[in-house]
């Protein structure tokens, strides 16, 4: 039985754990406010809030209901628009009405959910972050300018909220119905469930790839739902390594203090990865085993020379990420094995890192080409370098030859130009919806170059 609170109602349901939250709320609970736009997490019309109780406090984030397995709702508070509605409009709703932020109305609920959800965070509200909260919401009518104005209006009002106790403040100011205050007490009573499944059944994390690729199969599938397993979400450092749990989401990684410390530009990089709701769901292990040649996290962690720790029952083995992929969607992972940890050596003081991604649309898109670099230099001499590149081969590619060529050499424009032909031999792009092969080849060279422009601006400009 899956048990969770849907709006103001405690539910125990025997519905299939693989059913999407979207289908459950719309067709089993008859909550039709949540809309279906694409069923692939690319429009935000089905955004709902997922509330988790952590250390006595509620943390709400927006997610796309179309990709979320019902199993992942266990023990949580799921909020749809019906659970936000009060007699009078809340300030997000009112701002959208006043500024004409809604035209046909079909995307509107998704925006309202994202905007209201943003008000509920434990951080000081800013306009930039309010916009970031709706980066996964697509509107075809308004051209977004009226929605921007609505956000400006909303931020003016919510700026004064209590960061310590946002929910209480929001209830008082009539952003949220009163029942929200008692949610933590009600959630505490829901027990953690131990799933009984076969070892060999498919492991499912956030669902953001699987539910796009094979939604119908996922409904039937008996799966290991790992997403809610807190032990799998840890991010910590030990013996000079940083360990990331397999089920850590992109958001978890972005917010982990140790990651922030070593990668000060992390928010800027991750802003190029999908959208806020997808980052709230997509996990690092999911990204790796999806084995897309263009996986953003895969490219990111390849350049960190990461290793993955695979487990099957009590057996555990470690494999270098740059040795994990064999061919298109083929990897060195045995049946029943799951990724448990990803680890990489803490970057040293001389290390510099950069991540680049170019796609047809800068945000909320899959890369045409992406690339990352970790480099350490001493007196302009390359000590150590790892470069990865995606979208130009059947697998996410670690540039062995190019990296090796640069090793020990003195950085110069000439050196970079000499490296480009080597890079060219390591890639074999194909033409598809993300660009022609010629374009990807050119882009690969450009992104390789731009790493040095970004990291050594005085030398390369």
């Amino acid at each position: 039985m899956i048990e969770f609170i849907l709006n103001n109602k405690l539910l125990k349901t025997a519905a299939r754990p693989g059913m999407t939250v979207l289908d459950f709320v719309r067709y089993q609970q008859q909550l039709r406010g949540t809309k279906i736009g694409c069923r692939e997490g690319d429009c935000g019309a089905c955004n709902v809030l997922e509330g988790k109780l952590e250390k006595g406090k509620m943390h709400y984030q927006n997610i796309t209901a179309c990709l979320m397995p019902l199993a992942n709702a266990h023990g949580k508070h799921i909020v749809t628009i019906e659970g936000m509605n009060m007699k009078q409009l809340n300030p997000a709703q009112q701002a959208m009405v006043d500024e004409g932020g809604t035209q046909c109305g079909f995307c509107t609920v998704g925006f309202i959910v994202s905007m209201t959800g943003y008000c509920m965070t434990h951080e000081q509200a800013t306009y930039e972050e309010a916009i970031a909260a709706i980066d996964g919401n697509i509107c075809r009518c308004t051209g977004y300018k009226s929605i921007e104005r609505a956000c400006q209006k909303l931020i003016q009002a919510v700026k004064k909220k209590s960061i310590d106790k946002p929910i209480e403040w929001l209830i008082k100011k009539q952003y949220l119905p009163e029942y929200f205050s008692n949610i933590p007490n009600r959630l505490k009573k829901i027990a953690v469930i131990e799933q009984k499944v076969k070892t060999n059944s498919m492991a499912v994390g956030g669902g953001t790839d699987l539910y796009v690729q094979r939604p119908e199969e996922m409904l039937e599938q008996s799966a290991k739902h790992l997403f809610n397993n807190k032990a799998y979400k840890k991010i910590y450092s030990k013996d000079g390594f940083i360990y990331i749990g397999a089920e850590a989401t992109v958001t978890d990684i972005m917010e982990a203090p140790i990651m922030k410390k070593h990668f000060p530009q992390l928010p800027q990089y991750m802003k190029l990865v999908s959208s806020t709701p997808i980052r709230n769901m997509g996990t690092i292990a999911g990204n790796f085993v999806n084995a897309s040649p263009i996986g953003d996290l895969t490219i990111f962690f390849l350049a960190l020379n990461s290793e993955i720790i695979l487990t099957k029952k009590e057996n555990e083995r470690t494999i270098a990420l740059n040795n994990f992929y064999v061919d298109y969607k083929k990897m060195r992972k045995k049946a029943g094995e799951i990724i448990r940890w990803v680890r990489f050596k803490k970057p040293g003081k001389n290390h510099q890192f950069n991540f680049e991604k170019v796609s047809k649309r800068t945000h909320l898109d899959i890369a045409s080409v992406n690339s990352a670099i970790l480099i350490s230099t001493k007196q302009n001499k390359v000590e150590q370098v790892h470069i990865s590149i995606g979208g130009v081969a059947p697998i996410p590619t670690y540039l062995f030859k190019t990296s090796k060529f640069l090793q020990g050499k003195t950085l110069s424009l000439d050196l970079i130009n000499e490296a480009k032909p080597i890079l060219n031999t390591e890639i074999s792009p194909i033409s598809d919806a993300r660009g022609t092969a010629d374009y990807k080849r050119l882009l690969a060279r450009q992104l390789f170059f731009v790493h040095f422009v970004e990291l050594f601006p005085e030398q390369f400009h």
Partner: protein
Amino acid sequence: MVKKIKEIPTHIPSMKNIDSHSHVRGESIYIDDIPEAQGTLYTAVCTSTIAHGKIISVNYKEVLKKEGVIQIINHHDIPGENQIGGIIPDEPLFADKEVHYQGQPIAMVLATTEAIARAAVHLIKIKYKELPAIVDPIEAYKKGNLHIPSRTFSLGKMDKAWKQCEYIIEGKADTDGQEHLYLETQGAYAFPNENGHITIASSTQGPTALQRTAAKVLNIPMHKIEVDVRRLGGGFGGKEDQATAWGVMAALGATITRQPVKLILHRMDDMKMTGKRNPYRSTYKIGLDKQLNILAYEADYYQNAGAAADLSPAILERTLFHSTNAYYVPNVKVTAHSCITNIPPNTAFRGFGGPQGMFVMEAAIAKAARKIGVKSRAIQQQNLLNNGHVFPYGQKVEECEAIATWKGLEKKHPLKAIQQNIDQFNAENIHYKKGMAVMPICFGISFTNTPMNNARALVHIYQDGSIGISTAAVEMGQGVNTKMVQVAAKILSVHADRIKIESTNTTRIANTSPSAASATADLNGKAVAMACEVLKKRLLKVAAKILKVKITELRLKDERILVKNSPVKIAWQTLIQEAMLQRVNLSEHAHYATPKIHFDKNKEKGHPFAYHVYGTAVFEVTIDCIRGRYEFDAVKVVHDFGTSMNRIIDLGQMEGGLVQGMGWMMMEELIYNKNGRLLSNALSTYKIPDIYSVPKEVDVTFLNTDGNDMAIFKSKAVGEPPLLYGIGAYFALLDAVQQFNPNFEPETYHAPFTPEKVLMGLYG
């Protein structure tokens, strides 16, 4: 003389969209939100997997074995004609012997759940004999595959004109198609009623088109079919003709099974099965004299119409109407060809062929400017339309605002200063370059098919004083319902909250024209106004009788009767009660047909448009010359709204249309392979603008023009014109790329200008 520019007065609040309250609460009801009736069956459609070929056999054996499958329906099961073609009867509902595009419906499965229906479709086994597919319109043209004979508009004497030209430039310009991407996919829900009657709830812009076609397919009279449209989750032209098939299928299913049948397309199916904005390939020749006057313009447009005509012949016509955009050209010869290809039948999309034609004109100007060594805007400004000019189709240019909007823009946002900033930025930066472009527009308002320019309104005043209005207008986000409320509230002098706009329903309003051509508010608003005027007159007569005064001394104001401008005790509700006692008719059905307009298709001359809408925009863009990415810094527009009746709604149309047009020019890339398969067939591969890809600044100035009496309350039509500005995005990008790579000159100006094309241009 420069007209005074009127800013949006923020202190006068416009009426909010009447739907917005239920929208923000998620309480608005779209097709898939209608509570299901018991016994409802769900539909999945089986479609062709090849672009062209003969159907050898279809095997349904496995499908019938599947539990939950109730019925399979194909062309054999159609009681009437297997035909849904609107302009030309060339499109079967279900393919019979041949298929002409990937995604063409062959059969449908009805089942007890949607999941069963979808799974069942995969069990249908079809054998084809594949035939060669054509995707390129020019290839189709060369083979003589045309939907209709090519059409030519001409003005002046070409031969003589070319001889007078100092500069003659030839070139090519292509635009890709555009997926509508209405957020609500196509869908319908049909209910069987007694005596073979069917009610269809549909997400359509054209209720009558669906009713007419369903009647034909079901072989029953139109009065047995009631089409009801509450609202659309976006249309943009994509549901003008192309909503019909799904409504007809649902009706057919309901007729055969006697159970309610629901059909909602999944997004990828919608993208695969439905038509889009027509891609065009074009060639042009433009001639100018030394003073940069355009003396002659010739163009050939090869419209990629797809496998069936759909609305393409009408779209083709509008390409010709707008071929010279906002410019006067004394000698014109433009020819358009509607080419049959093996992709889904393309269809209406905001602008309706106009933008495709205007892009070619702008490409010709840009290329000419480069050859001559001047800025495009020097040629643009020199040739702007003015009163007394004539359009290539014979209509005189009247109440022209082309120069006024250009000058208005110059005054508010001096182009010289923008250019100076850009030049300075470009001189100081290596890895980033800026570019700019000016885009004037001119768009004709009316259906170019004159007989379609009519509408009706049915206004009931109920005995409690509340009012219900039915019209032919379909609400799809454009705010037409709000405007209808405004019309009635103003004429009857009642509060807006007394008025309800009913669903668009073919039983209440018959023989509707589709909500399209930007003309919905004008046509239906005029009909509402007429009905309300009649009712008002009747009510004043009632008041005159009670007060024993002359009717000419009476007026309605703010729900009160005024005698010689001073209020008396009779309020709205009392007046209505009194009218009931006097047995006065409190309902009125009015009919409006646009006066003056006509067009002779044999001569290709006439006066097809009620009026024109004008405007000028300037675009500023910055490109990242290493990565090929770009961001629009600003778009500033001075637009001719006439006397805008609702600034929030009109501004929303302006901004939304602009961004949609920019999407078409920037990133929306429909990629078909040689076999006619759409590769960008999902939101993950077909990218429309997100909140980060819109211009950082959009500044819209409402030009205070006189408006036109043929526009409702002189508030000019605003649906399509703003999309045309988007074309400026292409030319701003071109300018920026050329700042980095002065040698860049594309052989064909080909939109969209994706980051790929930018990067290849920078280093090409």
